[in-house]
């Protein structure tokens, strides 16, 4: 069984899917990612699928699951690099990918994470202050 490597760059975990994965490998990747998010405290996950030729309902569900899991650990997931033919097929298959964030490429995906990260900081400052009004004075 193929095991997909997970790279850590700063506080982002990066996964690049380069081979046609069997279902077991998809499940293993999901578990490995959950483990790494919790053990590293990473704030972002980028899944690069620019080399992926098809996304069916099994791997599509994995993206959605990873997105939900990462949210439980206060991290965001972005799927980047989806090929146009894959996007067209997904729509016809009926897979909406729900709350999974997507970006055109790795660079834009990292920008999305930075933006979400900045939002998170503001949220924390506001949350942690007893008198939120003064936080901005």
């Amino acid at each position, binding site marked *: 069984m193929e095991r997909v490597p997970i790279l850590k760059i700063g506080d982002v975990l990066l996964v690049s899917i380069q081979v046609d994965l069997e279902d077991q490998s998809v499940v293993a990747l999901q578990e490995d990612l959950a483990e790494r998010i919790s053990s590293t405290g990473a704030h972002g996950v980028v899944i690069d699928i620019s080399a992926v030729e098809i996304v*069916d309902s099994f791997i599509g569900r994995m993206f959605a699951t990873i997105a939900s899991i990462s949210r439980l650990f206060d991290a965001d997931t972005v799927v980047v690099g989806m090929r146009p033919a894959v996007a067209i097929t997904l729509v016809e298959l009926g897979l909406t990918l729900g709350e999974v964030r997507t970006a055109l490429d790795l660079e834009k995906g990292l920008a999305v994470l930075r933006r979400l990260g900045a939002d998170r900081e503001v949220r924390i400052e506001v949350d942690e202050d007893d008198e939120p009004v003064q936080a901005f004075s």
Partner: protein
Amino acid sequence: MTSPAGERKELPIRRDDDVVRVRQLVRSYAQQAKLSLVDQTKLVTATSELARNTLTYGGGGVADVEIVADTRRRGVRASFIDEGPGIADVELAFTDGWTSGKGLGLGLSGARRLVDEFNLTTEVGRGTTVTVTKWGR
């Protein structure tokens, strides 16, 4: 009328990695039949869903994949054959989002949308055969 155009192969579907092999064979035939990239992607995605159903619900079986031709064009036809429990309520099984297992319930309905011809025969206690065809334009 359609007639065989040469290539034909039968693959077993017994394990996860057999599903990968089915995807690869269908992709290679779709390229040989000169399907567009989008049509290749749609067909491979549909057959991935059907092969997984054969494995998960049919208890395994075979995929029979061939390049077909009529007077105007070539295409790829793939049959997924199992001797599993069959499908008691076919209409229900085709409902978007309905699954008897842990899936997303998009395999059958989605696969039907992704191909040009779709045929399902099933008998409770005897098994299920799904045949799909995608034509070049």
